[in-house]
């Protein structure tokens, strides 16, 4: 293996927090009391939580060591399909730390929070322009909550029209959040099979869309990395039968400046700021899931909303048909301001170039691997490419095992076993921020893994061997759950 690939590593051990420390230590600079003590009645007070007492250096070493067991985008290529692990700009982190924002209370009067309100107002306008829709709420905390907000809007829309509907159409390639979000609103998800080319066919939708169906949820580009080319026709069918079209904008990073969902029939769309707009994933969150809607659905957006009057911004609750509040305050403002900074850093041309290069990188990988991995569909992809495990069937090596072996080469594995409609799916999304050299390294590594699957399967079954841990026992964890120490 070349010196530029894989790991050689110094991995230090580190115990659990409560296996360290001594009673009486403290890693916190305790402020001096400047008022008299005023004890509470004894029946209300407890002994305090059983936390370990640690010194500052112990805390610092603990988390520094833990961090070295982690792999982030800053560490290396992270081609997780559907997750868009692009570079997270440092300037955005710096701006989020500005005291005026970081220390701002969410209930400050409008006159004392003009900066944050303007930022929210501007970002809403930017996202409306990008999506081709009329208004945006930034309150939803994540893509899944954006979906829930969208479903609540659909629910409110049908209720106001006098007849609630019971079902919603969801393609078989959808993320699991789609049916789960619809179910929270009492809608029965009706699966829509995709056609032989991996995209939805209008005739399938015609057969399923009836007067009991509230609408359709479409991810476009879909989770196979393909553009739903029949979107306009499908939207027309759904609209003609009184339904609404919900766009899952999880993959909007493929079509910035190329497609405006609002112009192709989408009525409601959520965006994942932690994907398309470069905010960090943080090991699982926090994200943000703004929702954009067309004009006649604006009245249903969550409150409070930022409104402008004579150059000043204020929060308004004056939307009686709103679905209500979905978060205690204004959503994940700290995430919003990073996305705002990203859009301003990129500008309109930069954003369009993002999508072009994301699609270029994905197709480049697809082309360079298609002789060793079986492409799920024999056609170019958008921002991610999907392979099945068909070519590996004979070796007996599974998708999971190949993924684990990639770790030894120093790469985060792609998304595996999703979408469900592709057997042993391998879903690769390199994103636009990766260099050609890094893509070539990843391609070389993957080809090497495929070779090993045929020639030396033992080494794959043992992988990974260069991490903090060998393969972990997920079955034991689930059979006898131990969730606290």
């Amino acid at each position, binding site marked *: 293996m070349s010196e530029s690939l894989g790991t050689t590593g110094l991995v230090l051990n580190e115990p659990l927090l409560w296996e360290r420390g001594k009673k009486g230590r403290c890693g916190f600079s305790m402020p001096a009391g400047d008022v008299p003590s005023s004890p509470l009645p004894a029946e209300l007070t407890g002994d305090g939580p059983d936390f370990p007492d640690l010194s500052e250096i112990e805390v610092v070493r603990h988390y520094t060591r833990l961090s070295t067991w982690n792999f982030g985008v800053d560490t290396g290529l992270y081609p997780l399909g559907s997750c868009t692990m692009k570079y997270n700009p440092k300037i955005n982190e710096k701006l989020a730390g500005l005291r005026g924002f970081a220390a701002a209370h969410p209930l400050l009067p409008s006159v004392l929070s003009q900066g944050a309100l303007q930022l929210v107002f501007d970002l809403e306008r930017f996202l409306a322009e990008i999506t081709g829709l009329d208004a945006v709420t930034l309150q939803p905390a994540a893509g899944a909550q954006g979906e829930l907000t969208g479903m609540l809007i659909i629910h409110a829309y049908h209720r106001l029209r006098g007849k609630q509907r019971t079902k919603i159409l969801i393609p078989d390639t959808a993320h699991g959040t789609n049916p789960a979000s619809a179910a929270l609103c009492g809608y029965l998800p009706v699966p829509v099979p995709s056609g032989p080319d991996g995209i939805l066919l209008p005739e399938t939708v015609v057969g399923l869309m009836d007067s009991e169906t509230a609408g359709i949820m479409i991810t476009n580009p879909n989770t196979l990395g393909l553009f739903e080319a029949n979107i306009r026709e499908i939207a027309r069918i759904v609209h003609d039968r009184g339904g609404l079209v919900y766009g899952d904008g999880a993959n909007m990073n493929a079509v910035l400046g190329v497609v405006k969902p609002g112009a192709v029939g989408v009525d409601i769309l959520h965006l994942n700021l932690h994907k398309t707009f470069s905010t960090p994933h943080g090991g699982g969150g926090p994200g943000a899931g703004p929702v954009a809607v067309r004009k006649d659905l604006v009245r249903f957006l969550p409150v409070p909303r930022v409104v402008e009057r004579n150059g000043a911004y204020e929060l308004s609750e004056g939307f009686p048909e709103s679905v209500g509040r979905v978060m205690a305050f204004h959503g994940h403002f700290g995430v919003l301001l990073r996305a705002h900074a990203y859009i301003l850093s990129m500008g309109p041309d930069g954003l369009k170039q993002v999508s072009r290069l994301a699609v270029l990188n994905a197709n480049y990988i697809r082309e360079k691997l298609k002789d060793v991995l079986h492409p799920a569909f024999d056609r170019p992809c958008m921002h991610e490419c999907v392979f099945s495990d068909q070519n590996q069937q004979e070796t007996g090596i599974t998708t999971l095992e190949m993924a684990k072996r990639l770790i030894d080469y120093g790469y985060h594995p792609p998304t595996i*076993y999703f979408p469900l409609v592709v057997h042993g799916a391998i879903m690769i999304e390199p994103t636009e921020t990766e260099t050609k050299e890094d893509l070539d390294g990843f391609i070389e590594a993957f080809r090497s893994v495929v070779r090993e699957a045929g020639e030396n399967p033992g080494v794959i079954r043992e992988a990974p061997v260069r991490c903090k841990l060998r393969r972990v026992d*997920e*079955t034991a964890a*689930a*059979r006898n759950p131990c969730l606290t120490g």
Partner: protein
Amino acid sequence: MKKIEEIQLPEELRYSPDHEWVRPEGDLARVGLTDYAQDQLGDIVYVELPAVGIHIAQGAVFATVESVKSVSECFMPLAGEIAAVNGPLSDDPVLLNQSPYGDGWMVMVKPDDPAAVSQLLTAEAYLARLKGGV
């Protein structure tokens, strides 16, 4: 995973197309998952069983079986009232993998129509379906 020939299918049991087996015991019937089903599911980590006393229709879900990354529903092979459940299975789901026809049984049911058992598949017919890839 086992090859079809390696699947154990006791002759004296009856089978459903949904991979449950039934063994008549007096006026009750014991129900469990077939060796084929447990093998397909892989390491089973959790089994959720119904409450004793409730009535379950034929073809309705009476239990769920979980592996690390999947949830499978089990469908009642014959209508009736749940007379008993295999309590130890909840604490030790590995029994279902180790002994699908023995300690890994799932429920005892009091069938509405004891004769309905005879309408289920024989071991031979079930095996034929497995070979047919159904």
